[in-house]
């Protein structure tokens, strides 16, 4: 009785209608609705909506300071959001397995662990048995065709080897989404080519949804199924371009007409946004 009373005589709030949640089109993996983030009193994102498709690679590209990395960090839960909703197949981040590859591999690996233990660390966090961990590690080593000694400490490896190891670590628990924050920026060209091919291979094998932030347009387009172009802040979606060239893409792809025109179109939109 009392509860009913309480409800009847309960305080009256002006009814602010909750924004209606509209799910994305079929095949959407990550749904972002009403995302708002302020930095030092200025809006970086305001009421930002986005659908990220499943089993696709999406490259995020945009002007300096538009918050490319901030966007994927908010989706990955590394930066808190002011308001809004981010769902993975309708689930919250808490119930979603993700992997994250940092630009600065040196400060992402744990130098007190051997490389192999670094890669196995997320598996151990999940509480998997030693046999399971060993089996998964063998799988990873085989699929990455690792040629260096994983018993070494990360700081004993070259930059490219360390970044390879940190991609292996991110993929070890078979994540639903892989986030890559400028993974090639700290690498030399040779290593960039190598890791780019590895990522494409992994994607062809597993179909893991990937979100890639890049400041190199060629790289962004080369790997992408979808190029997400952002505006200057407050950041909006400038354009979403679908790039459908067949995989595996090769060095020939880089000079194909469809690649060149996609790159040109992206660049035009980018410049339009920078000048705006």
């Amino acid at each position, binding site marked *: 009785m009392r509860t009913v009373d309480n409800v009847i005589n309960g305080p009256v709030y002006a009814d602010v209608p909750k924004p209606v949640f509209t799910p994305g089109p079929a095949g959407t993996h990550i749904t972002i609705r009403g995302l708002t983030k302020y930095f030092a009193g200025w809006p970086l994102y305001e009421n930002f909506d986005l659908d990220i498709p499943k089993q696709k690679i999406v490259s995020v590209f945009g002007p300096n300071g538009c918050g490319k990395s901030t966007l994927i960090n908010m989706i*990955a839960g*590394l930066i808190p959001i002011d308001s809004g909703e981010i769902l993975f197949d309708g689930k919250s981040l808490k119930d979603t397995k993700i992997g994250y590859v940092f630009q*600065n591999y040196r400060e*992402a690996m*744990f130098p007190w662990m051997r490389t192999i233990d670094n890669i196995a660390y997320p598996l151990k*966090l999940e509480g998997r048995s030693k046999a399971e961990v060993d089996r998964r590690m063998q799988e990873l080593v085989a699929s990455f065709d690792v040629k260096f000694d994983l018993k070494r400490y990360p700081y004993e490896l070259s930059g490219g080897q360390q970044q390879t190891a940190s991609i292996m670590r991110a993929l070890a628990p078979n994540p639903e989404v892989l986030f890559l924050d400028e993974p090639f920026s700290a690498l030399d060209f040779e290593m960039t080519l190598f890791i780019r091919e590895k990522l494409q291979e992994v994607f062809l094998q597993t179909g893991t949804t990937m979100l890639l932030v890049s400041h190199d347009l060629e790289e962004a387009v080369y790997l992408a199924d979808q190029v997400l172009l952002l505006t200057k802040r407050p950041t909006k979606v400038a354009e979403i371009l679908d790039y459908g060239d067949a995989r595996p893409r090769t060095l020939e792809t880089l000079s194909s007409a469809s690649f060149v025109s996609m790159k040109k179109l992206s660049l035009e939109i980018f410049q339009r946004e920078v000048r705006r």
Partner: protein
Amino acid sequence: MSTPASSGASPWSPPATAAAASAPPRESHWVKALPFIGPGVLFIIWDLAVRLGFIKAILLPMPADTIGTLLSGLAGGPLLTDFAVTVWRTLQAFLIAAIVGVPLGVLLGSNEKAYRSVEFLIDFFRSTPSSALIPLFLMIFGVSDVNKVAIAAFGALLIVVFNSAYGVMNARKQRVMAAKVMGASRWQIFRDVLVWESLQPTFVGLRSAVSMALVIVIVAEMFIGSDSGLGHRIINSQQVMNVKDMYASILAAGALGYALNILFLLAERRIVHWSGR
């Protein structure tokens, strides 16, 4: 051919290593002798100053005699007993500081609000010369062996707490984020990242702490009624003008401090093998 020469040549400066790598091996022998030049020159100047009568031998004994006294004293004389007593007191003080200070510092560091609330106290007493607190400790512990260890432990403790706490607070944010994104809980982040990240600064703290403990133990042995220890021996031999013994004791104290520092550097390089890489 030039690689083995360069690796052993000059541990004190990486640029010199690079230079030595391209230099002929003969020069690297020369480079190896460099650290001995300073002590050698000091020895010669000291010897000449006494020999030529610039300083009276009653104030400064011949270096060879002093080193003779040091060696024979450490080979089983009474100097060895005092040396051992000082080592033991320093170690006790250091162990107390380390066993209490490291966990306390790591805990305070992982809870920044807790650290901020005691930061002033730590900084204030860290800046207070511990020797100024000797009278206070005399009132609490009296003229005892416990007193000397207690005050040295106190001075060392603050250094350890400060360094360990800052080690945790300054942990690479990205490593913490990496653990977080892999789904580590707060406790797992603490155990697998923060504690490890704090190891290097903790070692810096431990190394400074053992030096501080030695300084305070020596001072306390000099001025808090003591009948043993290097500090007691230095002041005693000064008062009876036994300068040879005094200088030998001073050198022994110096050697002890130097050895402790090297010992901790080696341990740090061993345990925090990733430091600086």
